[in-house]
């Protein structure tokens, strides 16, 4: 293509004309490849969903019949439901830890200098850069050394340790963009530091807090390596699924998996929608 032709096309596009570029072979090949990859990403998920409605307890083609039995079985399975409940409890507790520890940490990193700050920053990020296996193992030896029995509490502490870095990085990034003049204005108008934090700072970093909390909760819900080493008698949902998978499969697992997919998709759509709207109103968050 000559420069003039490129120019013409660029200008046409800029004018928002309805004329579309002719799609060439290279682009369509790429499109096919890209869509194939995307489809590939969904094959197992689709399999999961399809077979959750399939009559046959064995997962094989051809499909036999439609049934909601597995869903019924899943929702009335006491062990599964308990594990689900445990996962929710652990998730909420872990997020609480993440926020209580993560917010002050992010502020300390953004606003103060102290000896060892760089080393500390690297330490905080370690759990999300290293395999969860290592964090899990090291926490196991720690609890054993401290004489603490494994239980849901150790799982909660493990998740808190592993996931707080998410809140720290998100809140830190938000604080770096934060306009501190409004905090000065608040102090100017008579507010003590805690009042400024509560009335001015916190409301304006809301998006980072909510976003990172959602991510942390979601990761906690599906967390495996750390949980694997720290679980006591009470199972979280992944641990329950793991025990069932090792024994032999029942399609109830497909059913619960599909439910989780559906709920996750809804949650993601909601948060994406919220972020999209926030950008539209042009608020300074």
């Amino acid at each position, binding site marked *: 293509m000559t420069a003039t032709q490129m120019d013409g096309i660029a200008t046409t596009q800029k004018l928002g004309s309805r004329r579309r570029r002719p799609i060439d072979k290279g682009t369509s090949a790429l499109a096919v490849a890209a869509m194939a990859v*995307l489809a590939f990403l969904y094959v197992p998920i689709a399999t999961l969903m399809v077979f959750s409605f399939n009559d046959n307890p064995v997962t094989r083609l051809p499909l036999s019949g439609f049934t909601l039995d597995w869903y019924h079985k899943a929702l009335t399975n006491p062990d599964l439901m308990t594990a689900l409940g445990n996962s929710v409890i652990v998730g909420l507790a872990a997020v609480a830890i993440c926020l209580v520890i993560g917010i002050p940490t992010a502020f300390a990193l953004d606003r103060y200098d102290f000896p060892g700050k760089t080393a500390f920053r690297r330490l905080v990020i370690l759990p999300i850069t290293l395999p969860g296996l290592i964090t899990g193992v090291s926490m196991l030896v720690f609890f054993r050394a401290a004489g603490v029995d494994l239980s849901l509490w150790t799982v909660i502490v493990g998740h808190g340790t592993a996931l707080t870095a998410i809140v720290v990085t998100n809140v830190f990034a938000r604080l770096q963009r934060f306009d501190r003049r409004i905090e000065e204005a608040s102090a100017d108008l008579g507010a003590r530091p805690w009042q400024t934090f509560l009335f001015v700072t916190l409301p304006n970093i809301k998006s980072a807090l909510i976003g990172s909390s959602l991510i942390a909760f979601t990761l906690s819900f599906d967390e495996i390596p750390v949980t694997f080493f720290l679980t006591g008698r009470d199972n979280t949902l992944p641990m329950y699924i793991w025990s069932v998978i090792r024994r032999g*499969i029942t399609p109830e697992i497909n059913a619960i998996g599909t439910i*989780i997919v559906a709920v996750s998709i809804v949650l993601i759509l909601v948060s994406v929608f919220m972020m999209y709207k926030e950008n539209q109103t042009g608020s300074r968050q």
Partner: protein
Amino acid sequence: MNHARRRKLGFWMLFSAPMLWWITVLLVPYLIMLSISFYSRQFPFHVPDFQFGNYLILLEDSQYWTVLLRSVKVSVLVSLLAFGMGYPLAYFLAFKVQSERLRLFLYVATIVPLWVSYLLRAYTWKTILGSEGILNSFLMWIGILDEPSTLFLYNEFAMVVTMAYIFTPFMVMPIYASLEKIPRSLIEASKDLGSARFGTFWRITLPLTMPGVLAGFTFTFGLSVGDFVSPLLVGGPYSNMISNVIATQFGMAMNWPLGAALGVVMLFIVLGVITASDKLERAGRLNLG
């Protein structure tokens, strides 16, 4: 009160409790793991000691080398496969999709699988690749196979495919981010100066996305090396990865010192990869403004 002292007080009030937490749950456990790696194995558990025996075992016993090399090999393969799948998708999204809404939709569609239970995604591969599974039924149905093949499951092939599948979105995200940052004017300039499409890609686009590619590779490599679930589900008996070995030491084998030593080794491998990739990125860093 002096303002400097006020600031110091504020800092300590803010940070002393969190600092204590971090030291207790992060620094101390890692240090304990490090120190246990020097302990001696003594039935039924272990005793405090300072000896390099565990590390020597790793150096001398060839089975550990085998497992280590296998882990590295598999992780590299997984990263390459994820790259091969992820880059075209990221490129397509960043450059070829004109509608902003469609692009957002497709991007979210790429990320959504991450939110489906990891265990279930790995497990469904078992059902897909198994002798009673979908792949076999499909191949028989269209006539390529006469009877189910056992070649697909319980080996390294299955592991690589499963893990690449799971980690591809992690490859797409940083690559897409770096593709988006490239000013279109650079590409147009390259084409304007006579470079054909592939030439432009090879000489301009690909180098400029190196940071994203490096990040994706590092991330995927780290995830693969640490994954002990997929090998157990679809890897079969001869596909032990270093992560499995570690898990066993803390499980049935009850050899915590050895497990800790292995953990330390894995830690250094991953840290090494991260540091190397950081240095590489900084060396070739181009500021796109």
